[in-house]
């Protein structure tokens, strides 16, 4: 017998429903930025997978507690009550000298880690004096051609103390070799001053090659040899650099290329799981390398969707590492992540509004439990950031950390019916993508088939259409457009720096031992021909012999070939 509605008093929820129905809704779409429909109200009914309190007051195991599997509420037991996130502003322009100055400026202003932006030629493996580098040298990052540039970059900064992140991917193995040799030489490089040894180097190299083909599009080799070079680096740093994060599995660029939050979540984690699979196939024990894998996510403007994304990401990673790959060390299960606010959310119109956007995005990253954070500068839709804009961006983090009180308790949004339901939903949608990718033969095959590339292009176009149809409002762009803030002093990268860098490079070429260059390159190519050889030691030898990045990449391209994309749009 169905219950008699007339004899049972309506529940408070039903009463609310009825009352809600009497009011007209605003004529907007109630969806996340990524298109997930949002209910007007969330209650305990919205978490069918868990119970609000659990039996006997037990904590819902899908949510858990901070520092324990499945890490939904954060990777450490004390989170920001124990230690704040690392404030790590990405910087780099001009030659190593200019960037070294910016690094010291940031350290002087309270920044606690360094993050290196390389220029486009360095990211693509071209030397500064290559014809392809014309106009690009030192523009969007620092130009690094040889180990000598790397030494200048960290002049006066103790690499045994400061953690360094390097955002480079296709030629990551080359840059890691330059970095390691530069550290070796910080002590002077002779026997009395051995410099900073490999096992004391602390930091991260991005090296996430799959997302290059998916989104960032800075490549050197075809997909398969690029995966091999990455595997060599993971294996080598696992053995030699216990404090080094061997890969920073990155959703940032996937998101910037136009992906939704769910796509960022799904493609990034699938890339990561693919690297784990490959390393295991190479014979590494998952618990030897998984603790050194780190992540890098975007923080966009849809506040709760971002927070839910981080929580879902940690839970999926923990489950997959434990259940699918059989990792036993809890450190293998926990997902540590860096976050950067969304460059793509910044507007060229009324640029000071970007300070507010960045603050909200940064707060989402913090409430999402990030381990380190970069806040964008308000002028970045116009140019590389000016010093003043960079300082405001850093101050934004410091305000969140020291003034707002959000660091007083761990995962303050945990248990919010809405946040938990959205976390569940994003997790479900991520697994749907995993299934589709598996059907295509895994992520490497899916990338070759341009599947994620196509999904991202679709999402990017859909968002642009929504903005143009004014279904999405962007303040200052398609609404409230009157009144711009006037002139802003922009950073100008002096075109003379390109000449300066080319001169530096040619100086190195003139001073080095040509026979050593030749010999180390020949040895490198020989090892590259052998699929089972590890390229890191030969790359270290090249670095010591002052071989340039471009020379190394060309030598490897002789063996591996290069890559041409079939664009989809």
């Amino acid at each position, binding site marked *: 017998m169905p219950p008699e509605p007339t004899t049972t008093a309506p529940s408070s929820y039903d009463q609310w429903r009825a009352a809600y129905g009497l009011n007209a809704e605003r004529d907007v779409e109630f969806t996340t930025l990524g298109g997930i429909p949002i209910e007007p109200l969330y209650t305990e009914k919205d978490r069918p997978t868990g119970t609000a309190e659990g039996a006997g007051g037990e904590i819902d195991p899908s949510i858990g507690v901070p520092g324990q599997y499945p890490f939904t509420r954060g990777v450490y037991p004390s989170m920001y009550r124990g230690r704040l996130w690392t404030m790590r502003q990405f910087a780099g322009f001009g030659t190593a000298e200019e960037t070294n100055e910016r690094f010291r400026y940031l350290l002087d202003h309270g920044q606690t880690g360094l993050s290196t932006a390389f220029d486009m030629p360095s990211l693509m493996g071209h030397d500064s004096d290559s014809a392809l580098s014309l106009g690009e040298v030192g523009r969007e990052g620092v130009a690094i051609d040889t180990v000598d540039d790397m030494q200048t970059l960290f002049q006066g900064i103790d690499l045994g103390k400061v953690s360094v992140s390097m955002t480079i991917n296709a030629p990551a193995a080359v840059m890691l070799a330059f970095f390691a040799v530069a550290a070796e030489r910080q002590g002077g490089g002779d026997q009395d001053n051995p410099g900073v040894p490999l096992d004391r180097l602390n930091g991260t190299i991005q090296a996430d090659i799959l997302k290059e083909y998916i989104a960032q599009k800075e490549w050197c080799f075809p997909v398969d040899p690029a995966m091999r070079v990455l595997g060599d680096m993971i294996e080598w740093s696992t053995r030699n650099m216990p404090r080094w994060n061997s890969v920073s599995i990155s959703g940032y660029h996937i998101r910037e290329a136009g992906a939704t939050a769910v796509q960022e979540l799904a493609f990034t984690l699938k890339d990561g799981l693919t690297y784990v699979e490959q390393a295991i196939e190479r014979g590494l024990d998952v618990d030897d390398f998984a603790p050194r894998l780190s992540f890098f996510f975007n923080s966009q403007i849809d506040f709760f969707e971002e927070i839910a994304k981080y929580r879902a990401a940690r839970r999926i990673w923990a489950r997959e590492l434990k259940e699918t790959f059989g990792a036993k060390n809890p450190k293998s299960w926990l997902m540590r992540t860096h976050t950067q606010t969304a460059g793509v959310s910044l507007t060229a119109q009324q640029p000071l509004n970007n300070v507010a956007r960045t603050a909200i995005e940064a707060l989402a990253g913090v409430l999402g439990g990030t381990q380190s954070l970069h806040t964008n500068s308000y002028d970045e839709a116009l140019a590389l950031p000016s010093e003043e804009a960079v300082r405001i961006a850093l101050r934004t983090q410091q305000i969140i950390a020291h003034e707002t009180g959000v660091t007083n308790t761990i995962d303050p949004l945990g248990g919010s019916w809405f946040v938990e339901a959205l976390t569940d939903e994003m997790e479900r949608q991520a697994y749907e993508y995993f299934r589709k990718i598996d059907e295509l033969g895994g992520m490497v095959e899916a990338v070759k088939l341009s599947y994620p590339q196509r999904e991202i292009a679709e999402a990017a176009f859909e968002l642009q259409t929504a903005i143009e149809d004014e279904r999405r409002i962007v303040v200052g762009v398609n609404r409230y457009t009157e009144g711009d803030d006037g002139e802003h002093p922009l950073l100008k990268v002096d075109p003379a720096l390109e000449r300066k860098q080319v001169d530096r490079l040619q100086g190195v070429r003139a001073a080095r031992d040509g026979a050593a260059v030749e010999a180390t390159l020949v040895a490198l190519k020989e090892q590259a021909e052998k699929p089972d050889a590890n390229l890191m030691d030969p790359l270290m030898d090249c670095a010591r012999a002052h071989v340039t990045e471009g020379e190394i990449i060309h030598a490897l391209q002789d063996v591996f070939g290069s890559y041409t*994309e079939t664009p989809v749009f």
Partner: protein
Amino acid sequence: MSAATQTKIRVVVAKPGLDGHDRGAKIIARALRDAGMEVIYTGLHQTPEQIVETVIQEDADAVGLSILSGAHLTLVPRIVELLREQGVDDVLVTAGGTIPAEDVPVLKEAGVAEVFGPGTPTQAIIDFITEGVRTLD
């Protein structure tokens, strides 16, 4: 171009320079295609020489250059100059990307018809190219 009123506008969307930021270029390419134009997208990392060759081979009416690497003052004038050297004077050249306002007059002086900054509605670009190509005829 002759008899262009009856034929589809042919537009090359090109990515000069080394940056991989292709979100904008692909959105524009698709919007132009949806607006009925014949779109040829060059793909990434194109040299000025490669772009000019594509424009000539494809017999394009317009070329849209998308650049976010900061190298626009080097690469864009170079492309316009190469087009002139090849005797191509009936192709509408536009540019877009992170181009500071003060660089816009420099690019226009070099021969770029219009520069579209971040946040430009695609319809504005469609209209500009449609009108510009008609005027060049």
